[in-house]
């Protein structure tokens, strides 16, 4: 029983990070229709920048966190302005390839600047696990779950109540109508990229605190696809729910099936799951079913 719960908790933590990344992805897709293959790299860049600030300038974690978020906010703006403005109207394959190219570029720039070794964040959380009942939970995990929950609540409030949040939802739902209502769609585009960058960064920093970071982190960008397929490409709720489900399932496979077949199933499972979902419910749990008009 303890084993099961440990796996479950680990799954929830990783899953919530998937949720964050998927949230960013879905945001961009919803507002601009662009499939962002570079989501994982945004996570990577954010994590490394935070580490850099902490280590090179000896800034305490909380401040570094906030500075990184601000930086990534503008970084997202920048990417949208430089690369994606020009691609409006181009066929979808070009845009997909552009984000793929972007992901390659970002990953290698990170590699050039910081190398490929694993780097660890200085110890902010004690390594000793905390005992709740009969379970040992790592302090980092607890912190991550709380942090993510807070972020998700903030975002939900943002989208439901603030003017900009509502504007974003409007643009995502119908661009033409929003334009005619006077919403500055370009600004919304830029904003969605900026927020997506921020959200991924939070995920990246949290992961970094668990075991360190290296260039492999961008794998999260690929894992995001099973999550959004499960949750529905254009559903924010779907991203959150899908993330946790995939995280938990993945860890369950890792815990129970991997030992039977000698490992590796954990990484391929989300993709197998994705194919199955595509077969039975291609639009995911919460996605809108596309009706094609001729």
């Amino acid at each position: 029983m303890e084993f099961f719960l440990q796996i479950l908790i680990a799954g929830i933590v990783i899953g919530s990070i998937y949720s964050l990344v998927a949230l960013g992805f879905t945001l961009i897709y919803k507002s601009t229709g662009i499939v962002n293959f570079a989501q994982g790299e945004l996570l990577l860049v954010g994590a490394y920048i935070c580490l850099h600030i902490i280590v090179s300038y000896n800034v305490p974690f909380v401040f570094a966190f906030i500075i990184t978020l601000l930086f990534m906010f503008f970084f997202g703006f920048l990417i949208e302005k430089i690369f994606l403005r020009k691609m409006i109207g181009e066929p979808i394959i070009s845009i997909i390839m552009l984000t793929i190219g972007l992901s390659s570029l970002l990953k290698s720039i990170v590699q050039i600047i910081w190398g490929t070794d694993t780097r660890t964040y200085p110890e902010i959380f004690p390594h000793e696990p905390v005992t709740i009942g009969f379970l040992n939970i790592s302090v980092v995990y607890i912190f991550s779950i709380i942090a993510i929950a807070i972020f998700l609540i903030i975002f939900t409030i943002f989208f439901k109540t603030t003017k900009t949040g509502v504007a974003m939802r409007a643009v995502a739902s119908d661009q033409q109508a929003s334009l005619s209502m006077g919403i500055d769609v370009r600004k919304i585009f830029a904003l969605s990229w900026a927020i997506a960058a921020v959200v991924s960064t939070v995920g990246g920093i949290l992961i970094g605190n668990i075991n360190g970071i290296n260039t492999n982190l961008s794998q999260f960008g690929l894992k995001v696809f099973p999550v959004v397929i499960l949750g529905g490409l254009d559903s924010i709720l779907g991203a959150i729910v899908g993330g946790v489900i995939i995280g938990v399932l993945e860890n369950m496979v890792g815990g129970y099936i991997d030992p039977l077949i000698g490992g590796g199933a954990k990484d391929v499972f989300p993709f197998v799951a994705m194919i199955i979902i595509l077969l039975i419910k291609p639009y995911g749990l919460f996605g809108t079913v596309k009706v094609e008009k001729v």
Partner: protein
Amino acid sequence: MRKIFLVIMMLLGLNLFAAETIKVGALVDLSGGTADVGKPYADGIKDCVKWFNENGGINGRQIELLIVDYGYKIPNALAAYKEFKMKKVVAIHGWGTGDTEALTKFVAEDKMPYVSASYSEHLADGKKKPYNFFVGASYSDQTEAALKFVKDKGGKNVAFIYNNTGFGRSPFFPDGENAAKKLGLNLVDKQVVDLKALDATAQMLNLKKSGAQYAIIQETYMATSTILKDAKKNGLNTRFIGLNWTFDKPLIKIAGAASEGFYGVSPFAFWDEDNNEGIRFLKQLNKKYNPSIQEREVNYVQGFASMYVLLSAIKNVKGKITGEAIKYSLESMKNFNTMGLTPPVTFTKDVHKGVRAAKIYEIKNGKIVPVTGVITLD
């Protein structure tokens, strides 16, 4: 298209003018999954060549080292091998298990002496792989030493932790499994942790369930750190023993407190063994060549020692330097002294693993201390 051809031919032509040097090819990993140990190792190789060149080279001829970073990707290694061959290197210093084993057929056909940083037992048979050599204790031998250590400590249940590369599997399947059986130990678990893994929770929880008292790790620093940290986080009582690539200061740095009590097998001298002649020499050399770097990993020592053996063998060749001649020169090395950086190196026609002894160490209070004397492996 034609212009590109002309440019390439020009560049190649320019290369041909440096004809008096002896060319040695080197495959290194500076950017791939094993880069954390690959970088210092490459530094060791470079410094050795530099030192040789400053002291007369090989019988008056300078050594030209052609380094290729293949990023631990086998296809890149194969391409680099082709290039080395074309540039007429006399020998190659290779790196990873996967690619070295992939190249054995070609290397034997081309009679190209190949000293690898891979200590896989598959490469030790001089009859089957006549041109492969390595300066180190084979992974299988190290595993056996670790298992014997476990038995001496009264342990009964062991586990293997590895990754899905040739390197990861080499010590355990089948040699490790057979050794455990021979010593009467129970192999209760096998876990796969990727070289660059940042999370090993599921694997550690499974390890805990299996009841293994000792677990042997074949990884590099990064994955080892993840394993140790996650083991600690999940309250495991298992003691871990790492093979040589897991074990040195960088591990202590990234694993922090989780590295306490970690055992390691290593045939190489560590940087703070000041009573070691070779270490004292290297400290001097390093100060001269790289004054800004005070601390060196054991991998630097390994790289230097390995290249030292190869270059010395080439130096001992009388007459024309051919692949075959270098092979015979290596095979005639008996108890070759590497300034104490490794136990004495011996090659024979049938046995191409150069080092047959190692020590077991433990990390105590953030320091590496030996817990056994020199163990001979056979």
